[in-house]
């Protein structure tokens, strides 16, 4: 009969980012693809939160009437704003598709093939980004 040894759970590792501060998001030491995906997921997430409140502020122009809104529509056709639109679409695509991977893997779905899942989703995202960019500048 084998000797019963007490099983002590390993202490939970502190996130690398907490140990290194927020600069840890950009620290390449020991970082694998998943770590970069994690960092970019957070950066795009924070950018999208900022955009959410900017968007709500812009939509307030609708309450000020047609002159205010239609002037904004003209402004939004500025090429610099259109470049911003493409950056925004990139953020949404990366955050959404990587989030889909994190959700699936977190619940054990295709966990063993998550690298392939990540690459596949990023290819889909890149195709959608190209189509969207063409549409934005059409």
């Amino acid at each position: 009969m084998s000797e019963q040894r007490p099983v002590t759970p390993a202490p939970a590792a502190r996130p690398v980012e907490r140990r290194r501060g927020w600069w840890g998001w950009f620290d390449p030491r020991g970082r694998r693809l998943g770590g970069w995906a994690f960092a970019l997921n957070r950066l795009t997430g924070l950018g999208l939160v900022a955009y959410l409140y900017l968007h709500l502020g812009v939509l307030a122009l609708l309450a000020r009437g047609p002159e205010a809104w239609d002037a904004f529509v003209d402004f939004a056709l500025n090429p610099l704003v259109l470049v911003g639109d493409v950056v925004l679409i990139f953020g949404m695509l990366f955050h959404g598709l990587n989030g889909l991977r994190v959700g699936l893997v977190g619940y054990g779905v295709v966990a063993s093939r998550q690298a392939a899942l990540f690459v596949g989703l990023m290819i889909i995202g890149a195709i959608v980004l190209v189509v969207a960019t063409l549409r934005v500048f059409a």
Partner: protein
Amino acid sequence: MSVQPRPGEEPGGGAGGFLGQVISGAALLVLLALHMIAQHFVVPEGLRDYAAVIDWLRSPIVVVLELAFLAFVTWHALLGVRAIIFDYGFSTSTERWITRAFAVIGVATVVYGTWLLYAVISAA
């Protein structure tokens, strides 16, 4: 190549937060896609002019979808920011206060967005 998350990389500030992020994230994949296609990609210049916006908002389905989008995106956004803040380590009582503050911000955001939608529709 590995994309295995390292310990602590799971978003959401705990299992409940992670589940909340997954549910709201899944809803957002659908609602954001609908929003982007209907509000931007099928519109000739990417944005409707005032008259077209008002006409668009006459549909109750559009209003319901936009309100659902607002609620889910606010929930997902604030839960995500909370998770990032929690990663830096606070006491339980501080985390409770942070959660309350985000709840207030979230409710205020949804109330503001709902009021804005109502104001635009009723002004037309």
